[in-house]
């Protein structure tokens, strides 16, 4: 496996070299000059691990992820039966879990948000995972692609806020609880709302790019039959899932914050909370 990762590295080196010749962006130009001096010197060292990946290649990979998800959806719908079996069963389990997840955070009216939240979760999870397979690169290792996801969520949340509360209600949402305090609260609320796509993007980008860098460095340290990075691959698969789930959870939380009833109304959704459990215990005891 380290062999295929160093092949990966050389492919990246080649791409960066080609970009340097055609005059790439300053970031890639810097690392490409490093690569050209190395190649001219004749030794095959690992490239600069901090190099930001090429956006066109990652866009191609993201289109591949979209096609895989589409294929999955179309394959699940083929000869759909009312009692599902096999692949359709698995697909229905996935959709049902996403539905439960969304409704669990947003509340009883949450089913209409499941398409966006579910798509975001599946797309991010698959994009993160695909980087582990040699030959493919995670689209989420580029800040542009993660920022696109953040902007999509941001626009959707604002649109839902305006649609549910009306334009006046939406503006009042930023004023805070008391109109007297609104000159103080409004800038803070607006800034914290506008920074949400950036935090979403940078969190996802930093986690996935960072684990990519760790895998590259560990792979270049290990020798052929001692793949040092295999354990980190398992950890990477876990963080891929966690980051996708965190993105989806935050999307649900931002949506539920916009509609003015926060999470406290939905404590009865998943069984009793601790206070209700104690109250029931006290009721039933003689």
């Amino acid at each position, binding site marked *: 496996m380290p062999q295929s990762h160093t092949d990966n590295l050389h492919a990246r080196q080649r791409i960066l070299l080609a970009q340097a010749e055609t005059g790439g962006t300053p*970031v890639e130009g*810097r690392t490409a000059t*490093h690569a050209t001096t190395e190649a001219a010197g004749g030794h095959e060292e690992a490239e600069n691990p*901090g190099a930001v990946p090429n956006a066109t290649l990652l866009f191609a990979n993201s289109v591949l992820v979209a096609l895989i998800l589409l294929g999955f959806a179309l394959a699940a719908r083929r000869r759909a039966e009312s009692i599902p079996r096999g692949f359709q069963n698995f697909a229905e389990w996935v959709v049902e879990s996403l539905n439960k997840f969304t409704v669990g955070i947003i509340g009883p009216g949450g089913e209409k948000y499941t398409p966006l939240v579910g798509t975001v979760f599946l797309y991010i999870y698959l994009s993160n995972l695909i980087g582990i397979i040699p030959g493919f690169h995670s689209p989420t290792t580029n800040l542009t692609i993660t920022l696109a996801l953040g902007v999509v969520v941001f626009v959707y949340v604002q649109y839902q806020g305006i649609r549910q509360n009306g334009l006046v209600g939406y503006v009042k949402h930023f004023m805070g609880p008391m109109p007297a305090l609104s000159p103080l609260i409004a800038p803070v609320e607006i800034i914290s709302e506008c920074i949400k796509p950036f*935090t979403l993007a*940078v*969190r996802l*980008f*930093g*986690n996935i790019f*960072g684990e990519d860098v760790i895998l590259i460095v560990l792979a270049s340290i290990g020798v052929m039959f001692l793949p040092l990075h295999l354990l980190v691959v398992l950890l990477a698969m876990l963080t891929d899932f*966690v*980051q996708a*789930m*965190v993105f989806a*959870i935050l999307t649900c939380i931002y949506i539920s914050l916009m509609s003015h009833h926060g999470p406290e109304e939905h404590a009865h959704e*998943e069984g009793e909370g*601790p206070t209700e*459990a104690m109250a029931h215990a006290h009721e039933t005891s003689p």
Partner: protein
Amino acid sequence: MVYFMALALALGFGVPVAVLSAALGQGKAAAAALEGMARQPEQTGRLQTAMILALAFIESLVIFTLLVFFLMQGNLPKTSDVLSAIQAGAGAAATAPATR
């Protein structure tokens, strides 16, 4: 040269300080979650989800620091460049009398 020394020191200390504070914070979050799970094992699912969420939030702050590291790392010179500059400087000082 002082600029590069200061930059290297700052880059070296930036992420570890963030990691130290994040480790303390994550330890507190995990301890609270584990205590809750020990008190009420039937709530394990909800507590686990909340714990993972809290850990991811705290970790994302460290990721911001790592991003600053990657942004500033490009300004550091390569070691071979620095060594050749030092050698060139030493060679010039050897052939010409030192002015200090």
